[in-house]
């Protein structure tokens, strides 16, 4: 118990003093996950919107695959990316394995389906409401898409934040493709796993605290956006 108490106080001290190792790990985590979320949003949001608005051959299969990917365990995605990027793999020549880029790729694969699926739900609900009115006003498909993305912006932001939450909290995939190399590919979740196994509870706890704070922040933002939307969402 005293061990635990000491670990907690050291953890808070580490966080409070912005320990160098700790902040390096946190910054890399943020860099990787924010990059992943930006890329995944650019890919996922239009896919979600298009799936909601347009009927095209293969749409149903696409949705099934998308939903299946959403439920895929992160380690499996890590394995797939590992195989693709390893020396013998099709993209081996780029030498990306065990770099932050590989981690970004894995996280993009992990959260794009999530963001696309959530965006589709948001867009479908909106389109159900808007379709007749927009068609009556004489919209083009592109203008309809733009109007839906804009009017659904708050709900879409929550989809993006959900993606960020999943990316930053994930450990299996980045462990496999990043390799958890000190000063290179060590992020918060992989260090926690490592430090716990080494018995260094203080650092692990410090990182845990930061993860919890981040999670609270993200969920607070989601809550705030929802509230804002309910009030009608000013221009």
């Amino acid at each position, binding site marked *: 118990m005293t061990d635990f108490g000491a670990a907690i106080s050291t953890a808070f001290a580490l966080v409070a003093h912005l320990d160098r190792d700790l902040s390096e790990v946190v910054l890399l985590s943020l860099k990787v996950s924010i990059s992943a979320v930006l890329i995944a949003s650019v890919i996922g949001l239009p896919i979600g919107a298009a799936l909601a608005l347009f009927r095209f051959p293969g749409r149903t299969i696409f949705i099934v695959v998308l939903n299946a990917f959403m439920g895929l365990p992160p380690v499996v995605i890590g394995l797939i990316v590992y195989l693709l990027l390893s020396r013998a793999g099709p993209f081996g020549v780029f030498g990306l394995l065990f770099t932050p880029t590989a981690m970004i790729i894995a996280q993009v694969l992990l959260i794009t389906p999530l963001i696309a699926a959530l965006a589709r739900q948001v867009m479908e609900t909106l389109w159900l409401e808007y379709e*007749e009115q927009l068609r009556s*006003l004489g919209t083009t498909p592109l203008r309809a898409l733009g109007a839906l993305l804009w009017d659904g912006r708050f709900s879409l932001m929550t989809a993006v934040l959900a993606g960020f939450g999943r990316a930053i909290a994930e450990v299996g995939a980045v462990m496999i493709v990043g390799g958890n190399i000190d000063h290179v590919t060590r992020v918060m979740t992989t260090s926690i796993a490592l430090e716990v196994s080494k018995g260094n509870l203080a650092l692990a706890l410090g990182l845990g605290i930061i993860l919890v704070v981040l999670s609270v922040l993200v969920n607070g933002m989601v809550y705030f956006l929802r509230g804002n939307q309910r009030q009608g969402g000013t221009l």
Partner: protein
Amino acid sequence: MIQADAPTILPLELKDVSLQAGQHRLIKDVSCTLDAKDVTIIIGPNGAGKSLLLRLCHGLLTPSAGAIHWHGANGRDPSLYQAMVFQRPVMLRRSVRANIDFALSLRKVPRRLRHNLIEEALHRAGLNRFAKTPARVLSFGEQQRLALARSWALRPQILFLDEPTASIDPAATHVIEEVIMAMRKEGTKIVMCTHDLGQARRLADEVIFLHRGRILEKSGAAEFFAGPKNDLAQAFLRGELLWWHRRELTPP
């Protein structure tokens, strides 16, 4: 942008128009012509197909059989000259002003002309003070007035209205009727369904009585309200058209 003096796309002719959903024929062999002028009011019991008929005319639904023809269109896209106000208003998640602006931009009205059109439409509908308010915080009645203002701004040649004053208070109903009559005066053809027979008497130049997907009577308003020829229409006007009476009322 539609010129105010563009030749009219009317008359609108429906030739044996039917609409089928699965086994059910919801609109049955409807043929009629709507002329460029005046107010045509469609009345009939719930489920008669009034909303469907408006959607067919407006082009939101495609008939399963038959044809819809805009005789004045001459190759122009008729949808650019129409507008519709729905039974329940649909507002974008933007300000009142932005809602009208969006509609104008879809019709390619140049930006410099939009300001005046928006101001005028808001003024007409008594919504000036809401210009910057998010449209969706307006009350139902205010939103319906906004829907009408948005249609007004588009200066359509024909306006379809689907029970625009259902669940609206008398004062707002009065405003809506005034806007409708002002549009009529400026040459917009009005096609509207309503359950408010008083309103039908006030506005109609022509009445269509729809029952179970068929037009049973189409006549001038004075003539119709003096006494419809169709016995179901007579019963409807007397408030006696009940579904369990239908068998006895249907002519053999």
